[in-house]
């Protein structure tokens, strides 16, 4: 092999290694600061009972569960904001069967936020049983999974559509199907 060609190959290999390295660092760096553990309420409290979760207190988590049937408590700030209007904090329960945590949240709750609906809350687990959320997402309303429809028709039998029967799922299962973000529409 002639030497200019060899040199070129060396350059090529070197270049690719550098590029791949940069890409890897970029992606890994992004991942490190942007991933959240998702954990069901039950599991979170069960771990706590085993006294393992001292580590989880103070961490940023995504907690998955169902909106409690207790009404949302809304506390309006005592002093009005300097620039007008009053902010407020909302407190609600996220549960998984009998396991419950209290979530506080200052932003707008999603439109589909209803008692009993599956929910995921992202935020800091600042104290045992208490989470200060910065984002609350309810189950996406996309009809591809069509939970509402499934629930509503669970006693109606469909004739041909096999997949329809199979997608019917108990609330426990749907709880595990929470999507990452509110999915828009169809696409």
């Amino acid at each position, binding site marked *: 092999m002639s030497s200019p060609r060899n040199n070129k190959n060396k350059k090529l290999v070197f270049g690719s290694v550098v590029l791949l390295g940069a890409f890897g660092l970029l992606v890994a760096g992004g991942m490190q600061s942007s991933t959240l553990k998702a954990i069901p309420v039950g599991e979170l409290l069960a771990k706590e009972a085993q006294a393992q979760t001292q580590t989880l207190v103070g961490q940023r988590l995504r907690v998955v569960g169902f909106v409690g049937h207790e009404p949302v408590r809304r506390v309006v700030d005592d002093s009005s904001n300097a*620039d007008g209007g009053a902010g407020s904090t909302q407190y609600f329960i996220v549960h998984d069967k009998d396991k419950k945590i209290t979530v506080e949240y200052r932003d707008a709750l999603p*439109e589909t936020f*209803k008692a009993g609906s599956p929910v995921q809350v992202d935020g800091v687990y600042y104290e045992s049983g208490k989470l200060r959320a910065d984002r609350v997402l309810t189950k996406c309303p996309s009809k591809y999974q069509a939970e509402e429809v499934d629930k509503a028709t669970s006693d109606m039998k*469909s004739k*041909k559509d096999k997949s329809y029967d*199979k997608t019917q799922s108990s609330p426990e299962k749907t709880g595990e199907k929470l999507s*990452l*973000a509110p999915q828009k529409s169809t696409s």
Partner: protein
Amino acid sequence: MTLPSFGHYFLLAALAASIFNVGATIFAFLEKNRRDPAKHKQFLGLAEHGVHAAWILTACACAVLMTLFLTDNFSVQYVWSNSSRAQPLLYKISAFWGGQGGSLLMWAGVQGTYALLVANSGRKHNLVIAPAATAVISFVNAFFILLIVWQANPFATIEGPLPPDGFGLNPLLLNPWMQIHPPTLYFGYIGCTVPFAFAIAALLHGRFDQQWVELVRRWTLVTWIILFVGIVMGGIWAYETLGWGGYWAWDPVENASLMPWLVLTAFLHSIMLQGRRGILKTWNVVLVSLSFLLSIFGTFLTRSGIVSSVHSFAESDIGGYFLVFLGICFLFTFGLIWLKRDELHDEAQINSMVSREGTMLIGNWVWLGATLAVLFGTIYPTIYEAMQGTRITVEQSYFNQVVTPFGLLILALAGIGPLLAWQKSKPVELIRKFRAPMWVAIAGIPLFCAPLMYYLAKPHADKWSTGAATALFLVVFLFGAIGSEFWRGAKARQRSTNENFLSALLALPLQNRRRYGGYIVHLGLGLFFIGLTGSSVFKIELEPRDLKIGEVLPIGEYSLRFDGFRRPEKMPPQLVSDVAVQMTVMKNGQPLLGRDGKPLALLPNIEIFKVTGIENTGTMPNQNEQTARRPAIMTNLAHDLYLALIGYDMEQGTATIKAYLNPLVMWIWIAVGFFISGTVVCLIPDHLGSRVLQPRRSKSELELQPLEEQVGVNGNGRSQDKVTVAGASLDQDIEIEIAVARARLKQSQAKQTPVQTTWQCKCGRTMQNEDRFCGNCGTPR
């Protein structure tokens, strides 16, 4: 036989017709190998009938489903779950693609249309590779029809008593964008199959000639722009109706449509290199296959539920089918590329990275890198769960953080690339070409970047963002670069044609439509980045605030006065309630006046929809109602004032308002206009291009015009190479183009003058041309 079962049988027949098309095409080529041209032709004719039949049958199935929707046939489960009696007619139509089965049926319809278009254009232009390409599309379509028939049949009926009313379309889908966004996105998304099909056909035939490059480039451009418009429409929809103040959330569904688009963008650049220099052939085939595989993979991601959890994947049958199909396509494609690797030898190589080719290649890596980063972020939770057993989620900040550097690189390359010459740039040339854009960029720092940064950052306590500053600087450089190219080009054209400057400038995009169409898209990219930077980095978002009537909420330079509740005079039938709050927009203590001279008020509202078709079980209050917040937006070139009504208490006279001030969003939509017009310029066919914008000239020059338009676009073989001179600058390029056009005209005129068929000898005898010696005296010619 009921109507729904007719639909089902139409689909089964369409499936058979698609498979028939694939089979007949395969047989045709087997016959060709046996050197039986008559049978080859016969089978190809049959295959074409198969495509036509499949299209008609799919159209019939679609018509049946549409009829079921329009006649409120709630015995069909799909109609029941997506429509209701009260639903307005337009939404009964768009409910067609509101769920799994119907949207897959639309997929089959669109894909069948593409197969038909390819088959017809193949016959019209006598394309050898068209039958194979059609068969590839039919094969993919057969898979989708199979999926509909087996797994997501929209014609399935409900047993037992007929439900009195349907469940209705999801309120979030009751929006005018629902009528246009999904079909557009589908045409773009499914369009990825066409360039892929042509690539596979070319591999099978071993034909990667200039005709193929031109064909694939045009199809890709069409797909690319439709997909882009579809994605943007989705963004506008989310922005205008979902009420969270943004247009892009890095949601898996969004990512799924973005990834093929990114790959297509890379492909559009690298196919140019293949056309010009005959390089990157393997790379191009891989890219175009990747865009197709990603479109299928994206569909798999969004429909199987795998992105949210592996558990739901196990429950969903549809995902498994996609995975198998994806595997087959992957193995087939890359196996074929491996088998035919000898056909894919490059005719040249890239000599220097400081050249048009070099920057396009780097750009390709950047686009592909961005795609991989998005892909990785989208599937990482799934991989992690499969390996570790616990679930994690990737937040939006990952995508913003990782994609930003790629975006800035692309922005830089979009300005640098057009300044570089093909093959290699001479240092003197480089300095000459970079001088003007650099001065523009430097002058832009105090004149444009700094004031804009100051204006944007002021409400954020003068927040500094290096990324935003870099982006603004690069945008100014890009404008300088493209502007100087237009200027230089117009000057050069003026020298050659004696037009005035303005008409030279206007005629320029038609002289070389690809180059200047591309430049217009690059300008659009610059504007796009201005909008993205402003609205992502410098967005103002207030927490929801409780306001009493008369209270004022300041945001940025505006303040909003809550002036009470408004209710519509006539409630649409699908609504239970519709309450709006009147927020009067004020600036400097005075109400802003609208176009009609009245004070400008924004009316964000909350609509409560009836959910029909289910009994209220009474266990939960308001179970059969669904709430939708409709934001109100005031748009101008500087920013969008975006208000969402979160809640209200009419007795107490309070409303909870969430307000956003999103700077420069308008520029994103303006940029889309540039993208579309640039693409249209690229797509103007030759015979039209020569008619549009004829410059006023003498007669002989008028005759020159059509030929000039064709230079560098058309012709057999790699005509562009003849025009391309290594390291030639743009003005030289343009002069050469015009000179070549003139030379060709002369050539064709020479051909038209009656060719002398005889010659006359000195002795006076007339001889035929083929006689080399005189028959009379023997003198040689």
